[in-house]
């Protein structure tokens, strides 16, 4: 039989409807991106702002030892945070997905509500919690576990803790679907074939969720790479990630062209990693 209408909707409305998101993406995303791209080749003028030009000096500066080191620190911080985040998120999500459905719901709701907190609230809450004047160390002193209150922020551990905290819900929500889809009878089958719980974890669970773990790692990595406020508030200058320096250049040093060039580098790094994630996701099928 013939189906001449297959794949050809007679109604043209769907196409018109698509123009709305298209225009929005163009206006809100693509146009600013073009402006930023152009800006990154502009010439900076001391004591003024910048003037249109086509120079590479911003990129030359962006590739200077100082900024390369900053990029290195950013990548390192993002990698460590993503790793710790996964270390916590994986077992948590694994056991969560093994609970009865009705018991899982409250945890998931809690996690989503953490996602709704802004980075500002999280950064300042942690800074308060780790401060000398009103932080947890006072509580520990009251419990006679410490002699005197101490200041834990700013510092590398403080920054990392907050970064892990903010990305944990994201990691869990990304991991959750593939872990809850993992058939329990797979591990049971391994058990009847002589595998102890540890052996079946490494032989059966891990190989079947490896892809999801990798995807989550890269997503959290990109997420942390783009964070600005937490490193700013809770990190020392030597821990500052690239976004902090971009803001620094743009707002304090009024060097918009350099900020634009640095932002382009960050964007390219994130886009590259996102593509890698998509690639891995596809090869999974």
């Amino acid at each position: 039989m013939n189906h001449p209408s297959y794949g050809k909707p007679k109604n043209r409305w769907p196409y018109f409807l698509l123009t709305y998101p298209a225009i929005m993406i163009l206006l809100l995303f693509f146009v600013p991106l073009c402006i930023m791209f152009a800006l990154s080749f502009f010439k900076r003028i001391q004591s003024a702002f910048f003037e249109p030009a086509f120079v590479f000096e911003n990129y030359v500066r962006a590739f200077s030892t100082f900024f390369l080191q900053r990029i290195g620190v950013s990548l390192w911080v993002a990698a460590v945070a993503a790793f710790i985040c996964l270390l916590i998120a994986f077992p948590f999500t694994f056991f969560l997905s093994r609970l009865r459905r009705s018991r899982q719901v409250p945890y998931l709701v809690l996690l989503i509500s953490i996602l709704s907190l802004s980075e500002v609230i999280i950064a300042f809450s942690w800074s308060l919690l780790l401060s000398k004047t009103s932080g947890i160390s006072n509580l520990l002193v009251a419990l006679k576990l410490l002699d005197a209150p101490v200041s834990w922020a700013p510092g590398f551990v403080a920054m990392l803790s907050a970064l892990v905290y903010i990305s944990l819900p994201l990691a869990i929500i990304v991991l959750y679907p593939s872990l809850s889809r993992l058939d329990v009878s797979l591990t049971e089958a391994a058990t009847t074939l002589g595998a102890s719980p540890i052996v079946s974890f490494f032989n059966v669970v891990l190989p079947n969720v490896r892809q999801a773990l990798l995807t989550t790692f890269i997503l959290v990595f990109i997420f942390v790479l783009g964070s600005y406020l937490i490193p700013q508030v809770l990190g020392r200058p030597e821990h500052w990630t690239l976004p902090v320096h971009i803001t620094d250049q743009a707002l304090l040093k009024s060097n918009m062209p350099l900020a634009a060039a640095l932002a382009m580098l960050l964007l390219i790094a994130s886009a590259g990693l996102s593509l890698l994630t998509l690639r891995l996701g596809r090869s999974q099928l």
Partner: protein
Amino acid sequence: MPNLIIQAISKRFGQTVALEDVSLTLPEAKLICFLGPSGCGKTTLLRLIAGLEQASSGKIFLGETELSAIAAHKRNIGMVFQSFALFPHLNVANNIAYGLKIRGVDKLTRLKRAEELLELVQLSGLGKRHISQLSGGQRQRIAMARALALEPDLFLLDEPLSALDAKLREAMQVELKLLQQRLGITTIVVTHDQQEAMTMADVIVVMGENRVQQIGAPLEIYHKPKNRFVADFIGSNNFIPALVKDTQSVSALGSIFEIALPKSLKVGAQVALSIRPEKLQLYSSEPPKSSKLAGTIKFIRDLGSTVETFVEVAGHELSVKGIQHLATGDKVWLSFDPADAVILEV
């Protein structure tokens, strides 16, 4: 290979009772079917034997060995799961050889054994295939091959054929039975399909209401059901309300029947006379038999291989199976051999 002895096993999940005081002795090297309606605890009992659940009370022995005291992964039991549970990240051969790998058997021996098992389940040459490239029937066989790779003491299958279509299912019933006879491994198959149990089993354990209702050979279960539950669940049955007259007769539907009665029944007790539809004979005139009933045909339906006739006798409808040439509304006589009737307590 010794008997499997299940001793007073009970299992609760929170408030839910899954099994209540189950005691069984299952013979070695036989094919045993756990048969019962959904939710009666068949899977739970199988999982308890495999060690995937812990009993709330009771013990399980394999001969002298207390199975219930051994960790699940040390029991040497082959199990086929309802979902087959094949490892999606391994190919067919590596799935089959997984247990051998855990025991540290070298790769060459593993692959050789995997090929042997593929031959056993008639899938030679499929070793390199990916699990996702297999049909339902093939997966089922691979799951069996994997469970048999370690030459287990017990071979457990949870509704292994329920995912297959009717035609394949019937072929597999025969094949599974032949495989079991060839290997001589004590095999337990869980099923809710009485036809399947009748076809395959040496011994049927009828389960219902979270207990064991009866254990016996298929024909024994069919012809001599121990209680109303079994008589109702296995095949179709007519239940006629009856009253015990004396030690060897009951009255039912206005007639007296001479029937061997269990000793435990008291005179005047309410019982049910259970008789299979195919054990009832229809006559257009009064037959010269002792056990007979008079009635009227209410309804006739053609079942293809046979005809089912519904006869009303003293306000009670009875089903009769067998070819006949009567019409709805005809006055008829029914008779049966008292040896075919079973008296059940109600």
